[in-house]
């Protein structure tokens, strides 16, 4: 059985990445290299106000003084930041009408199953499509505007809502927060911007679809979501990239701000190219995501399904500043072939009666290495803070690894903390049981893994829960027996 399992694990590794095609499109691209001139040029193309350029340059100055973090359990060759291009965009301006979008690009999104045509789009989901460094189109903008909801590309927001950008940019992730956040602050090119006004429940799911196409280009997007008092928004991001032999860098920043009584639900389905079976190519995903529950009774919930990237370095976090605020993190991370994921969360309790929940499911196959790294911090004034953490890992085959690093720092004695962690293999006995009932090995594996991930999938918006389930099935096809 074990040998047979290994054979099928080997078979999985030969699985083709479905989204690995490239799009041939006329583009404007910067020469590789990074200095103040490049940043100034970028800012100029985007017609940014002076203060934003200064903000970028300050971040760049800081970044140069910082060094790349080495504490994560990931192993990769040093990145040559001067060999990357910091801007790549299809040769055309932002379009008001889809008719103006390069048909090649529309076709790309169609192939990815993302229709930008509002008529054909899933009902109740608005999409912002980001292709390399720029946003291509945002759907349902007018419909959303009727409710006062602003949903547009980050670049547009800089032009149309500078006061909001100035107020909130860097308010959750300071430009000097960490090495990759500083780099992003200096060179970010586009991303999505969302503002939900007071008391509005956003009438549809908002989503951004990130696509990296250009070679040797870093994608540095910046997303900012602000939920004003008493509002609610559910937001989803999806990501894919072509198969290329060289590694591509993706260093994003996502900032969320929830005011009093507001709720932000942020879901990610990340399926960047993960590299081939020798570990060649794939996306380096160094992402800083953080939400601030600024007001009382606010809530921020992160749900992520991570199946792609050669390297994942990502810790969506919540700062619970308001009293009675709630932070949640639900994660499924799959690593196969030579993928490495070091992911987790940080829950920082500042307000009274704040409550956080962490549920993570790590799945390792092939030679994948899956690390959960989570920090829970209860500050001195956080009376009656509560945390529940549950970190489960499952191993498929005997060459992969799962690691758990919980960090707990409690400064207030009234805190209640619960932590559970398990690691198990997909049992031969479970597979035997399913097979004995006539269920094929592949189906049995996906059944067992989906069962394992159930608590997380339940947190996804329904349309995407189905997508996530299928993604896991495709990813793990032939991974056993």
């Amino acid at each position, binding site marked *: *059985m074990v040998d047979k399992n290994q054979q099928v694990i080997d078979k999985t590794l030969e699985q083709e990445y479905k989204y690995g095609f490239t799009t041939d499109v006329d583009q404007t691209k910067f020469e590789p290299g990074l200095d103040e001139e490049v940043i100034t040029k970028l800012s100029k193309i985007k017609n940014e106000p002076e203060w934003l350029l200064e903000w970028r340059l300050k971040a760049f100055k800081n970044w140069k003084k910082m060094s790349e973090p080495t504490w994560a359990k990931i192993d990769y060759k040093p990145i040559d930041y001067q060999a990357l291009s910091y801007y790549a965009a299809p040769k055309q301006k932002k379009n008001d009408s889809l008719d103006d979008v390069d048909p090649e690009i529309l076709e790309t999104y169609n192939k990815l199953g993302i229709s930008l045509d509002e008529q054909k789009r899933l009902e109740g989901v608005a999409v912002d499509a980001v292709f390399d460094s720029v946003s291509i189109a945002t759907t349902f903008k007018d419909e959303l505007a009727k409710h006062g909801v602003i949903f547009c590309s980050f670049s547009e927001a800089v032009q149309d809502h500078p006061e909001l950008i100035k107020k909130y940019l860097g308010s959750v992730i300071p430009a000097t927060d960490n090495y990759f956040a500083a780099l992003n602050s200096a060179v970010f090119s586009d991303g999505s911007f969302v503002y939900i006004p007071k008391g509005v429940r956003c009438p549809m799911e908002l989503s951004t679809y990130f696509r990296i196409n250009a070679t040797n280009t870093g994608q540095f997007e910046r997303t900012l979501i602000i939920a004003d008092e008493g509002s609610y928004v559910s937001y989803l991001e999806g990501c894919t990239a072509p198969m290329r032999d060289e590694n591509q860098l993706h260093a994003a920043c996502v900032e969320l701000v929830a005011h009093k009584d507001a709720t932000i639900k942020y879901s990610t389905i990340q399926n960047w190219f993960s590299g081939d079976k020798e570990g060649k190519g794939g996306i380096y995903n160094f992402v800083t995501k953080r939400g601030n529950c600024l007001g009382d009774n606010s809530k921020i919930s992160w749900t992520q399904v991570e199946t792609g990237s050669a390297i994942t370095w990502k810790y969506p976090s919540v700062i619970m500043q308001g009293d009675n605020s709630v932070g949640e993190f639900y994660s499924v991370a799959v690593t196969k072939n030579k993928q490495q994921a070091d992911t987790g969360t940080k829950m920082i309790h500042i307000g009274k009666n704040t409550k956080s929940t962490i549920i993570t499911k790590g799945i390792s196959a092939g030679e994948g290495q899956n690390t959960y790294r989570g920090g829970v911090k209860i500050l001195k004034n956080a009376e009656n803070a509560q945390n529940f953490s549950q970190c489960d890992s499952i191993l498929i085959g005997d060459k992969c690894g799962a690691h758990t690093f919980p960090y707990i720092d409690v400064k207030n004695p009234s805190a209640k903390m619960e932590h559970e962690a398990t690691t198990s293999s997909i049992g*031969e006995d479970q597979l035997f*049981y399913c*097979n004995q*009932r*006539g269920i094929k090995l592949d*189906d049995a594996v996906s059944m*067992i893994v989906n069962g394992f991930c159930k608590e997380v999938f339940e947190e996804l918006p329904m349309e995407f829960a189905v997508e996530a389930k299928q993604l896991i099935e495709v990813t793990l096809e032939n991974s056993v027996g």
Partner: protein
Amino acid sequence: MIKIKNLEASIDDKTILKGIDLEIPAGEVHVIMGRNGSGKSTLANVIAGNEAYEVDGGSIAMNDTDITEMSIENRALEGIFLCFQYPVAIPGVGMAYFLRSALNAHRKHQGKDEMDALEFLNNAKAILSELGLDDSFLKRSINDGFSGGEKKKSEILQLLTINPKLAVLDETDSGLDVDALRTVAKGVNKFKNENNSVLIITHYQRLLNYIKPDVVHLMIDGKIVKSGDMSLVEKVEKDGYSWLEK
């Protein structure tokens, strides 16, 4: 129906089955009794194709199809069903989903249409009520947090849903109270007919008070040493197995 010829099997280079001959025609219930370690459970597992065991010789055939080398799921689809002694839990996988997947795998193999959710549910509910189980049973994760009795009843629910050609009951009676034992027996009696067969592996007479076997086999050290009728069971209950070791 099932024909086992001179079957030899080992685990971790230790020989357990040393030449088993067994034939169970359609419509018959056979019982295998024997001491702990005599190879009874090994036989059940080898019939089901558990790959932890190595078949060193002999053959197994179902309805004249040689299944000795067949994969676990294919022999299941050929009609072999094992009621597990220790059914394993699969957290997060709902009973209904699992059972319907299993049933439809069989139906597909038989060239039938898949059963839709509603028909399946009606079917399953009827069986549940006969087993004295609540409908909510279908919403639970397979064997996860089940009591000993619930686990065995879940096996019988699966047996009656899948309706195989051969049911192998591996100590299904162990650890059951009298009521649960009766329920399990009722389920098995409901299952058996002239077209299928049952192999019961047990230590005790008590299940056989409810299910009447046609043939009783006694197993010692990897071999069937004696076959006969119900009177063998009574003799074993009274005298144990040592009288066979001569």
